């Protein structure tokens, strides 16, 4: 099999695991893919290098391909997401001072999102009475799961993300220092940056993505659309390599080796023990661990399947927060960035279970449930939103209307 060369960009985060494992553990090689990984300092750089053809693929925030397609970025680019790269993996961390204020206002047990949300609302009210300035929260990008899950959690807790707090953009590796120096009061970021802040005693984790929305999408494999069109076989090989890598990453027996690989300076550059916390679901020191089940899931529960319903949920949040006007054409563009057809084309030779549908009702499962799959059995994880709302992609209009009222 002739080798195909693929260059992919990534940001130093634990959820770059699948790409890193594909390169380091031989999965890319087995598929005849010579995979080069290039670490970048901003999502903007990943976009720009992809636009001029230096990258064929990249580790991307799940809403990014949608933002490109809707023309929300300073540079036009057509990117498709033939695969997701895991579920969960983020947390909301607040400064030690704010954590104490929250506890004082209304005691809660992290990561309980209801308790943490009520405590934060009470703390914000107390601050308003005292005449303190609004709290500042950092997120990594306006078109990110972090921005949308933080806003979702705040709004559902009775906190207006537009007026009760200020949301600012901070690069992931800068978050712990920004919290420690008091530039921000809290943040929502991927691992290991929450654990870095916790280990420096700069912050405490209030809640986690997998508690706000269980089994929720976070990163995707972004692929340049023109490259994908002209290199179907190469893309299939890449997706197969990443699927096998995800399977390996999801196996608890791999966690120690994986955390040591990710810890290396060319990848995440933090200690293996900090990186391991996300893989093992132990980001909250002293917690029983049960609440963190599925904190980061790279493989199980169809964690690599690019659900078009999830693309539409991200779109609904873009509309909700004024990033884009809702039109049926825009909704269609958002949905079509996610390409389950390419996923199926790549994986069909492996005879692995693949969801038969392209979309599902998000938030309807409270227990693990089998899903219709092409072959074998495939279980979906519980996928509830913490406030009990349900997102039915066929009822987008009424979902959007609920948020306007």
């Amino acid at each position: 099999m002739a080798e195909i060369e693929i260059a992919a960009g990534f940001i130093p985060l634990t959820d770059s695991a699948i790409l890193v494992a594909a390169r380091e553990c031989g999965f890319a090689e087995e598929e005849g893919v010579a995979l080069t990984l290039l670490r970048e300092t901003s999502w903007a750089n990943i976009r720009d290098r992809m636009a001029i053809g230096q990258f064929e693929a990249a580790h991307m925030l799940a809403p990014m391909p949608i933002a490109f397609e809707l023309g929300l970025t300073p540079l036009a680019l057509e990117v498709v997401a033939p695969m997701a790269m895991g579920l969960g993996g983020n947390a909301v961390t607040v400064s030690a001072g704010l954590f104490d204020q929250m506890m004082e206002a209304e005691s809660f047990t992290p990561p309980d999102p209801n308790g943490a949300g009520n405590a934060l609302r009470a703390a914000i009210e107390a601050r308003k009475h005292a005449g303190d300035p609004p709290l500042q929260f950092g997120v990594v990008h306006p078109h990110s799961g972090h921005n949308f899950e933080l806003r979702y959690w705040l709004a559902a807790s009775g906190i207006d993300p537009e007026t009760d707090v200020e949301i600012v953009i901070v690069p992931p590796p800068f978050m712990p220092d920004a919290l420690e120096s008091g530039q921000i009061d809290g943040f929502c970021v991927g691992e290991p940056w929450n654990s870095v802040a916790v280990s420096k005693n700069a912050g405490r984790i209030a809640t986690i993505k997998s508690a706000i929305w269980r089994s929720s999408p976070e990163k995707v494999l972004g692929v340049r659309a023109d490259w994908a069109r002209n290199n179907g076989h190469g893309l299939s090989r890449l997706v197969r390599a990443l699927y096998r890598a995800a399977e390996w990453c999801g196996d608890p027996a791999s966690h120690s080796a994986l955390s040591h690989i990710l810890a290396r300076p060319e990848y995440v550059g933090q200690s293996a023990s900090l990186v391991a916390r996300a893989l093992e679901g132990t980001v909250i020191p002293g917690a029983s661990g049960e609440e963190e089940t599925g904190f980061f899931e790279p493989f199980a529960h169809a964690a690599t399947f690019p659900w078009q319903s999830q693309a539409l949920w991200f779109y609904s949040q873009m509309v909700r927060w004024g990033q884009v006007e809702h039109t049926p054409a825009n909704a269609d563009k958002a949905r079509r960035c996610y390409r389950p057809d390419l996923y199926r084309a790549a994986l069909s030779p492996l005879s692995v279970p693949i969801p038969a549908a392209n979309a599902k009702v998000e938030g309807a499962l409270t227990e693990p449930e089998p899903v219709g799959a092409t072959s074998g059995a495939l279980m979906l994880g519980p996928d509830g939103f913490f406030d009990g709302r349900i997102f039915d992609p066929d009822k987008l209009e009424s979902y959007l209307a609920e948020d306007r009222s």
Partner: protein
Amino acid sequence: MPGRPPSVLVIDDNSVRAAIIEAGLREAGHDRVTVVTDVTGIAGRIAALEPDVIVIDLENPNRDMLENMFQLSRAVKRPIAMFVDRSDTDSIERAIDAGVSAYVVDGLRRERVKPILDMAISRFNAYSRLERELEDARNALQSRKVIDQAKGLLMRSRGMSEEDAYALLRKTAMNQNRKISDVAQSLVLAADMLGKED
């Protein structure tokens, strides 16, 4: 405002490089150039300056924050990445290779932007060259120090003259196909481990 030169904002946490770009732009007749090395409070600066062109180093991790701010800021009207002319892939690639990125206010004519970008690219490259030369000079100095140390070791322990000590280092290096400074480094390290030098 026809005829008025575009206002340029340079954002670079490397103050030396920023100064080099600023000087270049001023020499080329751009008198409306502002340099910002610390992005704290940048929103206010941008609102006050209303820049037409923003030049930023590509490796700046704050690019995502800045882009978000450009989108929200009313001062920068619809900023577009420099790749406004997709057919000009050559200059896009040169910019990325040089490590520079830029944003341009929509509507500014390309022929007014290009000289600014070209200047930024050439100054970024000049700075990289300068940095490489400095690094080489630093390495050369370091090698000379190590070679002097190794010569001293040989002179003391084997009673050699300075010339002979150097000749021995050079011969060993040639035989082993290594650099003299590497051989000297090994010798100094070995002596260190054996505790011959205090």
